[in-house]
């Protein structure tokens, strides 16, 4: 089902979303002092119709980054005033409340990890989809309802006429995630943020949901920002990959290039920990240790305590994101030697 990945777009294709130096701080109870920086100087851009995967372990700041694009960062998180998030040249971070509301869902939509708790338990699936349509368009409820039915059909829900009036708890996990996708696509957004869309689901259902996403992307020309900890679902699906660690992007490349030549020790570690159906079992090597707490990022390179190739300068000097190939950058002192 993933045998025909879309061709990579030209690097000069029109940029839809541009994120520059995004920083998020956690403030203390009084709201004045920043006690942690879970996202620190993240920059990337998303072109029309492409898929960018943002990859990293939990706690690396990838979900916070995606929430910042809709200004949904929960307390105590605060987006740095110097950050820039522009959509079609318009700065999202300075929008007034009404323009922000009009943008959410309509330009950038979002699918969340846990489809059970992310759908409102007291409203039917249909009511929640119709609500998403009517938040952005003046349409009659019957017109919105028939569009909701079409969407449910499109995301592969059998018997949409019966399902539309069901409550989330009457559906299976995969079914709920399909409803979430239908709801996100209802206002016909340009960008879809999918935050771990399959993590809470069974393996077989995962594949089905990913297939739905792929199909809808090609039909609607969506740009997708795929947030995941699983490099396995990135291959053959994403055009480009940005690997995040401890609040920073540590490596960024075209998907093929990244898989062919993973350069950052962290990316190498992530790749080595993917279980493969082929090849010797001994290849499976998880990275030792865990992501540190944002309140105490290590000095120097933040990966150095877990890095198998650590050098002296890694402990004191933070590396910059350096070009190591065509469209390939990484944040590692090894880049200087190569």
């Amino acid at each position, binding site marked *: 089902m993933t045998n025909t990945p879309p061709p990579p777009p030209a690097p000069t294709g029109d940029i839809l979303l541009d994120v520059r130096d995004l920083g998020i701080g956690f403030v203390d109870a009084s709201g004045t002092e920043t006690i942690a920086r879970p996202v620190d100087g993240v920059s990337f851009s998303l072109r029309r119709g492409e898929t960018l995967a943002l990859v990293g372990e939990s706690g690396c700041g990838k979900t916070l980054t995606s929430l910042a694009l*809709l200004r949904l960062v929960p307390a105590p998180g605060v987006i740095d005033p110097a950050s820039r998030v522009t959509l079609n040249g318009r700065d999202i971070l300075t929008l007034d409340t009404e323009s922000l*509301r009009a943008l*959410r869902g309509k330009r950038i939509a979002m699918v969340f990890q846990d489809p059970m708790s992310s759908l409102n338990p*007291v409203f039917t699936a249909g009511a929640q989809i119709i609500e998403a349509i009517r938040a952005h368009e003046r349409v009659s409820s019957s017109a919105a309802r028939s569009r909701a039915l079409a969407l449910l059909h499109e995301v592969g829900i059998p018997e949409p006429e019966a399902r539309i009036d069901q*409550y989330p708890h009457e559906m299976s996990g995969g079914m709920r995630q399909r409803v979430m996708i239908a709801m996100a696509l209802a206002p016909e957004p340009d960008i879809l943020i999918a935050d771990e869309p399959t993590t809470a689901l069974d393996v077989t259902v995962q594949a089905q949901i990913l297939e739905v996403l792929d199909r809808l992307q090609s039909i609607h020309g969506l740009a997708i920002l795929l947030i995941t900890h699983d490099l396995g679902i990135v291959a053959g699906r994403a055009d480009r990959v940005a690997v995040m660690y401890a609040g920073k992007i540590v490596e960024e490349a075209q998907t093929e290039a990244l898989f062919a030549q993973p350069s950052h020790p962290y990316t190498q570690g992530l790749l080595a920990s993917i279980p493969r159906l082929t090849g010797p079992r001994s290849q499976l090597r998880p990275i030792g240790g865990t992501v540190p707490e944002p309140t105490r990022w290590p000095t120097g390179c933040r990966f150095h305590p877990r890095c198998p190739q650590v050098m002296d300068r890694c402990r004191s000097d933070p590396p910059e994101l350096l070009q190591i190939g065509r469209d390939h950058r990484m944040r590692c002192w090894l880049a200087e030697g190569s």
Partner: protein
Amino acid sequence: MLPWIAGRTAQAVATFVVATILIFMLMRLAPGDPLARLMGDRPMTREEVATLRRLYGLDQPMIAQFGRFTYGVVRGDLGTSIEYRLPVTRLIRERLPASLLLGGTVLVLNFTLGVWLGALQAVRLGKRFDRWLSTISLAGFALPSFWLGLILAWLIGVKWRLLPALGMMDPLLPQDAGALTRALDIARHLVLPAVTLSVVSIAATIRYQRTAMIDALAAPFIRTARAKGLSERRVVWRHAWRNALFPVMTLFGLWLPIVVTGSVFVEQVFSWPGLGSLAANAISGRDYPVIMGTSLLAAALVIAGGWLTDLVYAVLDPRVRHG
């Protein structure tokens, strides 16, 4: 669903049976002569006392008395009031409308104002409004209703003469007064007792709704609602509130007994002609059949309230309904 309703109903009936036994035992095993009041009225001969005892069945062994009492309860006969010389059930029937009016008003006040204030507190969590209302509701919990009633009656009713502070109707109202005049008169009399009772009880609703709303606002589906471009008003008052209302509905059934229990002191202070003042007067009159009758009614309301809440919850909450 049906077996569940049957089971829940059986449980309610069993609880009522136990409560009935307890009420009888507490009353009859407590020290003191139930007829002391009657015998205190005037000197009585030994024969008169014996007649009285026979009349009230007090000459029988305890178990026979209990049989008589439960048989009466089943038939809807709660005995005869010593004070009023009338059947207790008739007294309760006469007093019920006034209590329903007062209790109903308080319930409506608590569940409109209280639910709204609690939700608003959750929306402004940690802000000045939230902190002040928390302190004020805590103070409401600490207010003795009889004292608040007395102070309000004194200040508003007597000193400033803004509202009537005694009874339910103006006895000087002309005989031919219209329905509207009478209704307005009752409404004016209702204000002080209803406000007093509400002030001391609304805090429970406010705090409960605040907690439920804080939980609802923290739920992941609220983030979904915001992400799809709903206005903040819709997110809060539709998506969060609809979820936060279910827990508060449990409280409604629990508050049902306020019709009798909450109003003992308030009705007494404002001479409101309801069940509460009936019970309060029965204390000073040592009118034990009335005390037993009102206690039984209070227990029935508590049990019915819990039963009703569970049922309504099952019918309204889609999660329970299909669960």
